[in-house]
């Protein structure tokens, strides 16, 4: 193939690297009002009084808005398809504040200095309540985070607000207890995964203005323009037809920008003042007033027979959703959705709750529950293997689903593709499993050890999310590809163009890609849930095929042959005999010239009943300092089955980036609060994402499969790559020094103290 499978540079890469002004704040009008937010210093309180009069008098202050000035319809910031599974539990501003950083007032002024000055002049009196800070004590706590009557859900998610339960989940196949009773060995452990910050380099930002029709335009650094439009319509109580959301280049998302940020605040200011406004969250706000990965406690029970055949697997999950329920029920569900199908145990069960606490909300984050679940389940598998005296890779090879097997989530669809077994074998070979597993002494104080984990994810949200693509043949013979998928650096504008170019047998340069603008783009939920390559990709392929047929038919008509006797060959349609041809340019021109013509437009809306899983086998080699407990990652091998690799270099870097985030979660990153619920890790100084020196070597390999339902056989890659590092590194650390760290991150101190403990025994 000419384009698919080629490492084509990203079409916007040159502009990005050479520093062209293409991000939200680069485009925003210079005279836009600057919007700042006064935030709550308390974890849980009621505003008794708020006096903005002094602040309003300040020169340059345009408006100050409080809970008295906002529409009273509750909404969710979660960017999900309607009907959203997240509760409508927030107002733009409310007289109750539910975490430190919750919004109290909106300030709009001519510049940042004035806005900040005005903020200091606002006087607020609070009645402070006892906050719920420990998520393990949330259920049945005397404080109820959301007592309000008008909180609602679109459908049953197991909400019990008086108990601080946002969502409940239960799924079971087979008889778990019965199977467990017959197992030779059982592993029963509790794992804790921490809240993790997305820490994309571009913080949340939105620029809003009214256009010539008086419609609200929001240029937003978002992954979900269509959802933001619906969200704004509901929150502001204006028709969606009055709103346009445009996504420019985005400086990273990782799921963060699948949840609304400052959009509502800037939009409200623009509506109230009629003036352009922009809101830019600073790093502290981004860390402490948006969302993070949901922190979880996961209890795993896994049983097997002596030969290592896993019979039963049970997960009990408690998820900390913080002050608002964005993505609460779905992330909870995904803990099981992407772990339970992986092993063919006869009986599998997940039960769990997501609970409200007075902390920053959890949200969507690359991996979306699968990351948490994978840490727990894979750690348990490693322990099981040890208990049985079996090689952990062998245990997996014995139990994983294979192509043709039935996945428990899709009983009617056999698994279309998987090379996970080959991924495991190849990974073992590449990491040097035979020679290095489990552990070697490399210096008097240093040991090196290996660990592993496998994982799966989905590709899009089955039966819910669809994607639409349109491709036009333009008047001068080139194409415009219209999509609503949102390139946030992932390169989807490029790979979707590659797919279109492949089908249309044209060049990359002939295709203009436009995304995403709710006024122009066809509907797409946005880029999340690993949907873009698979779902949007399929829509693009089908739209391109549709257009190709039309071009052929049109060309054949001009050539006065039937379509079967003509073929598209680069820039010409010619007869199969080769005696006549017409250029694409001419076809294009003739399609729009004169009467009775029709411009050719290919079109497709695509959604699927299944979400085929990509797989990764991850292998870690760590070096542990026996005197300090510090574990350094020396080598990481990830072998990926993402179906057909559409663009190898982009897929490789996507994988390396996901692995790096996983390494961060394994070793360094930890959102921490003080006793009053104030976040302590609200800067890059206190919250350490991995720097260049922390990564060691990461090596990525592909074991391509061919997914029959995917575009050119592709599945997804965006999320699955984040899941293996934490369990694989934890496993390696255990193999190195015998300490199982079951509560992330794995800090030197935890390892050292664990070693001390072992020495005492």
């Amino acid at each position, binding site marked *: 193939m000419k384009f698919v499978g080629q*490492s084509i540079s990203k079409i916007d890469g040159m502009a*990005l690297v050479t520093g062209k*002004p293409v991000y939200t704040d680069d485009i925003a009008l210079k005279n836009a009002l600057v919007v700042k937010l006064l935030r709550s210093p308390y974890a849980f309180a009621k505003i008794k009084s708020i006096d903005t009069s002094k602040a309003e008098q300040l020169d340059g202050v345009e408006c100050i808005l409080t809970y008295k000035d906002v529409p009273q319809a509750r909404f969710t910031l979660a960017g999900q398809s309607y009907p959203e599974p997240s509760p409508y539990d927030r107002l733009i501003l409310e007289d109750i504040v539910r975490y430190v950083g919750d919004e109290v007032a909106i300030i709009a002024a001519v510049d940042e200095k004035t806005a900040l000055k005005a903020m200091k002049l606002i006087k607020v009196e609070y009645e402070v309540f006892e906050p719920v800070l420990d998520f393990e004590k949330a259920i049945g706590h005397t404080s109820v985070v959301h007592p309000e009557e008008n909180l609602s859900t679109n459908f049953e998610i197991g909400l019990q607000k008086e108990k601080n339960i946002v969502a409940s989940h239960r799924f079971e196949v087979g008889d778990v207890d019965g199977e467990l009773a017959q197992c030779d060995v059982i592993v029963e452990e509790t794992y804790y995964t921490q809240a993790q910050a997305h820490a994309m380099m571009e913080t949340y930002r939105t620029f809003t203005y009214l256009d010539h029709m008086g419609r609200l335009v929001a240029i937003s650094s978002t992954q979900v323009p269509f959802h933001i439009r619906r969200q704004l319509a509901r929150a502001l109580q204006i028709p969606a037809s009055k709103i346009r959301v445009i996504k420019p280049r985005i*400086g990273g*998302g990782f799921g963060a920008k699948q949840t609304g940020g400052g959009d509502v605040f800037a939009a409200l200011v623009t509506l109230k003042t009629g003036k352009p406004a922009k809101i830019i969250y600073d790093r502290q706000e981004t860390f402490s007033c948006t969302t993070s990965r949901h922190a979880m406690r996961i209890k795993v029970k896994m049983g097997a027979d002596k030969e290592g055949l896993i019979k039963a697997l049970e997960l009990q999950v408690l998820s900390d959703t913080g002050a608002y329920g964005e993505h609460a029920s779905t992330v909870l569900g995904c803990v099981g959705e992407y772990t339970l199908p992986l092993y063919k145990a006869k009986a599998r069960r997940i039960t769990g709750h997501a609970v409200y606490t007075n902390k920053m909300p959890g949200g969507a984050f690359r991996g979306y529950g699968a990351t948490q679940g994978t840490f727990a389940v894979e750690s348990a598998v490693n322990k099981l293997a040890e208990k049985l005296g079996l090689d952990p890779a062998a245990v997996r090879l014995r139990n994983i689903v294979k192509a043709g097997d039935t996945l428990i989530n899709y009983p009617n669809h056999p698994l279309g593709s998987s090379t996970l077994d080959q991924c495991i074998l190849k990974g073992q070979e590449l990491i040097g499993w035979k020679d290095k597993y489990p552990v070697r002494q490399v210096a008097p104080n240093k040991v090196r050890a290996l660990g592993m984990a496998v994982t799966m994810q989905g590709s899009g949200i089955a039966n819910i999310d669809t994607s639409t693509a349109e491709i036009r043949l333009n008047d001068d013979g080139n194409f415009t590809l219209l999509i609503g998928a949102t390139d946030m650096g992932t390169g989807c504008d490029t790979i979707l163009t590659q797919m279109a170019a492949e089908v249309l047998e044209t060049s990359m340069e002939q295709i203009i890609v436009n995304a995403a603008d709710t006024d122009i783009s066809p509907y797409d939920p946005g880029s999340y849930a690993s949907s873009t390559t698979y779902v949007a990709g399929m829509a693009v392929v089908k739209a391109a095929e549709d257009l190709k047929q039309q071009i052929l038919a049109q060309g054949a008509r001009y050539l006065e042959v039937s379509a079967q006797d003509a073929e598209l060959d680069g820039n010409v349609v010619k007869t199969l005999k080769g005696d006549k041809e017409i250029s694409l340019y001419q076809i294009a021109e003739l399609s729009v010239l004169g009467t009775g013509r029709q411009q050719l437009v290919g079109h497709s809306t695509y959604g699927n009943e299944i979400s085929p899983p990509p797989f990764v086998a991850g292998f870690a080699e760590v070096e542990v300092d026996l005197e300090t407990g510090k574990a350094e990652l020396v080598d990481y091998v990830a072998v990926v089955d993402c179906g057909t690799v559409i663009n190898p270099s982009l897929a490789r*870097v996507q994988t390396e980036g996901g692995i790096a985030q996983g390494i961060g979660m394994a070793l360094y990153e930890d959102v921490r609060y003080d006793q009053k619920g104030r976040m302590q890790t609200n800067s890059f*100084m206190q919250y350490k994402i991995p720097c260049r020196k922390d990564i060691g070597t990461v090596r990525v390999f592909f074991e391509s499969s061919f997914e029959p339902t995917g575009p050119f056989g592709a599945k997804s890659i965006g999320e699955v790559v984040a899941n293996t590092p934490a369990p694989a590194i934890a496993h390696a650390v255990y193999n190195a020094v015998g300490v199982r760290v079951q509560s992330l991150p794995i800090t030197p101190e935890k390892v050292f103290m664990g070693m001390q403990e072992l020495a005492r025994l």
Partner: protein
Amino acid sequence: MLINLSINGKDVRIDVAKDEFLADTLRAQGFLSVKKACDTSCCGLCTIWIDGKPTLSCSVLSIRADGKKLTTIEGLQQEAAEFAEVLTAEGAEQCGFCSPGFTMTVLAMKSELKNPSDDEIVHYLTGNLCRCTGYMGQLRAVKKYLEVLA
């Protein structure tokens, strides 16, 4: 306060607030390649050159730059494009938000270090955080770039 700057070889005289930092001054002057991703001098996205040395523009008071030679990537378009060619071929610019600052550091390293080892490269570039790429691709690109030059 009025200060004199040479920005990318062009002399300008501008009025800045006393507590204004260079990153903001430069953005206000239209040098929009200068990105900021933190308030704690940790990320390196705002890297420019002051008198040829890679420096955090977010942490230098504009007044301090009075009389100095500043270089942003707008002033190094050709060198930047050469490096971008290699970086994009590797796919190691994802969101790209970190790329201008990163490129400024790479170009500074190129003139400061002769034949750097992998460790020296990593050490020199550590101050540039990137959340998307996991750094490996950037390293591959830098090595290729240095090879091509050599």
